[in-house]
C-alpha cells in the first residue's frame, strides 16, 4: 500500500514536471532570445550562458534598428499603441452597449429577448471571414476602411457577446428584491440601475471587461483583413515585422515578448475570474 502510493507520488511529480516544461518552455525561451544578440542566438549548439542585453528592447522602443549592414526604421511602437487604442475602445464600447442590454435580458423577460440574446451569442461562433470579406468592400464605399472607428465596430463581434453573456449571468445572480425595495422607496429606474444593480454586478462587469480586452488584444484576423500598416495591432504587426526584418531574430523575440506581456500580466492578475468567463458562465471556478 505504502509502496504504490510512493510510486504514484513519484509518477505524479514526474508527469507534472514534464507538463510544466512543455507549457512554460516556449515563453521562457523567447524571453531568453529577446535578451541576446544575434551572434549568441545563432551559436550552435544553443547555450543558455550569455551576457544579457536590453539592446533589442531599446532598438524597438527607439524605433531604429541598426545592424552592421544597414539601419532601418521600425514602427513597432506604433503597433503597440494601435493594440492599446483598439482594445481599450472596443471594450469601452462593448461595455456601454452590452451592460444595459445584459440587464434588460436578465431582469425583463420580454418578447424575443431569448432570440436576440442567442443571435448575439451565435456571432461568437460564426466564421469571422464570412462577415469580414463583404465588409471590406462596404467599408471602402462608406469610408470606414482603415479607420479606428470601423475596426472598433468589427471588434464588437468578439467583445459584445462575451460581455453580454457573462454580465447577464451576474445580474441574474443578484436578487431582484433589493432593487424592488429601492424602487418602492421612490427612486427612479435609472438610479436603481446605477446605485444598486451596477455596484452589485461590479466585479463581474470588471472580469468580463478584462476578458474582452484580452480577446480583443489577441485578435489577428480582423485587423489583418481591414487595417493597413499604420492601424495594425501587434498581432499583425509582429508578422509583418518578421517578414520585413528578416534575420534580426533578437528584435523579433523582443517584439513578441512586448506583445504578449500585457495579456499575460492581466491574466495572472485576474486569474480568479477567468474560468467563469472562459466558459461564458457555464462553469464556476
Amino acid at each position, binding site marked *: 500500500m505504502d509502496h504504490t502510493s510512493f510510486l504514484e507520488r513519484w509518477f505524479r511529480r514526474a508527469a507534472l514536471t514534464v507538463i510544466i516544461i512543455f507549457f512554460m518552455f516556449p515563453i521562457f525561451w523567447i524571453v531568453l532570445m529577446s535578451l541576446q544578440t544575434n551572434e549568441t542566438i545563432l551559436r550552435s549548439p*544553443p547555450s543558455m550562458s550569455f551576457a544579457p542585453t536590453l539592446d533589442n528592447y531599446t532598438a524597438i522602443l527607439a524605433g531604429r534598428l541598426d545592424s552592421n549592414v544597414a539601419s532601418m526604421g521600425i514602427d513597432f511602437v506604433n503597433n503597440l499603441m494601435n493594440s492599446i487604442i483598439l482594445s481599450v475602445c472596443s471594450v469601452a464600447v462593448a461595455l456601454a452597449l452590452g451592460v444595459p442590454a445584459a440587464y434588460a435580458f436578465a431582469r425583463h423577460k420580454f418578447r424575443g429577448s431569448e432570440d436576440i440574446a442567442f443571435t448575439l451569442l451565435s456571432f461568437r461562433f460564426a466564421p469571422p471571414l464570412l462577415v469580414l470579406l463583404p465588409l471590406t468592400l462596404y467599408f471602402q464605399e462608406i469610408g470606414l476602411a482603415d479607420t479606428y472607428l470601423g475596426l472598433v465596430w468589427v471588434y464588437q463581434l468578439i467583445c459584445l457577446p462575451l460581455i453580454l453573456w457573462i454580465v447577464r449571468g451576474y445580474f441574474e445572480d443578484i436578487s431582484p428584491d433589493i432593487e424592488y425595495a429601492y424602487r418602492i422607496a421612490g427612486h427612479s429606474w435609472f438610479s436603481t440601475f446605477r446605485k444598486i444593480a451596477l455596484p452589485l454586478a461590479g466585479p463581474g462587469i470588471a472580469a468580463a471587461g478584462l476578458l474582452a480586452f484580452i480577446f480583443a488584444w489577441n485578435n489577428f484576423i480582423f485587423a489583418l483583413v481591414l487595417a493597413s500598416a499604420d492601424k495594425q495591432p501587434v498581432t499583425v504587426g509582429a508578422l509583418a515585422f518578421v517578414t520585413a526584418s528578416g534575420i534580426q531574430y533578437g528584435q523579433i523575440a523582443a517584439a513578441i515578448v512586448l506583445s504578449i506581456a500585457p495579456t499575460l500580466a492581466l491574466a495572472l492578475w485576474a486569474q480568479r475570474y477567468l474560468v467563469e468567463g472562459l466558459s461564458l458562465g457555464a462553469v464556476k471556478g
Partner: protein
Amino acid sequence: MTDTLTTRRRQLISPRALPYVLSLPALLVCIGILIPFVTAIYYSLQRYRMSQPWNRGMNWGENYVKFLTDSDFWNTLKVSLVYAGSTVVLELLLGLAIALLLKKRSTVNNFISIMLLLPLMTAPALAALMFKLMTNPNFGILSYFMQVIGFEDFRWGSSPDTALFTVILVDIWVYTPFMMILLLAGLRSLPTQPFEAAALDGVPQLEQFWRITLPMLMPYILTAALFRLLDSIQQFDIIYAMTQGGPGDTLMVFQVEAYLNFFQSTNVGRSAALLLILWAITYVLSNIFVKNWLRLRERAKGGA
C-alpha cells in the same frame, strides 16, 4: 408622496418599452453585422472575380455544384476535419490527464493551474511566431533537440510531411489549458459522496474513474470539446502565421483557403461559397453546443 409622483412623471420611457430601449444599441450593432452576412450569401451565388468585373453575374449555385468535382475543395474539407478532429481529441485527452493530476486543491497545484493559463492568454498568431523561431533550421531550439534525438532533417512547418504536426503542436500548446481549466472546475464541483462510498467498498482507482468520474464529468467534457471543435474547425491565426496554408496546399483549411481566394486569386464567389459551407457546419455544431452549455449553466447556477 409628491416626490414619487414627480419622478414618475419625469420618466421619459414607459416601463414596457424599457427593455427594448436598453437592448436596442447592441441590436443595431448586430444588424450592421448581419448585412454583410446576407451580402456573402448573394456573392456566393455569383460568378464574381474582382479581376474580371465585366464577367460578373448570377450563376445560381454553380459555385457550390463545382465543389463536388473540385479536388481543392475536398482537400480543404479533409484538412479542416483532420485538424479539428486531432486537435480536439489530443487536447481533450491531455487536458483531462492534467486536470486529474491537479484535482486536489493544494498550493502547488493551484500555482501550476495558474501558470498553465499563460499559453491560453498568448495570441495564437504570436504563439505560432514563437514556434516558428524555435523551429528555425539554423538556430531553433526544437530543431536542435530533433537533431540530438536523431532526426537530422526534421523541417517542421516547411515540409509537407510535418507541417500539419507542427501547427497541431502549436494549437495543443495554446488550447490544452482551456480544456484543462474547464475539466478541472468540473472535477472539483463533483459531489464527494460517490467516491467515498466507492473507497469504502474497496473499488479500485481505475474502476472508480471509468464508472464514476467519467460519467459524471461527461457534460463538462462535451461542452469543452464542442466549444473547441467550433473554434478549431475555423482555425486561421496559427496556420496563417506559421505557413500561410503551405507548403503547397497541405494546410489549406477553410478560412485560409477563403482568405487566399479572396485576396490573391480575387475569386469572390468561390470564397463566399466556401465560407458559407463552413458556416453551415459551425451552425449545426453551435446548436448542439448551446444546448449542452445551457444545461451546464443551469446546473452551475443551481449548485452555486
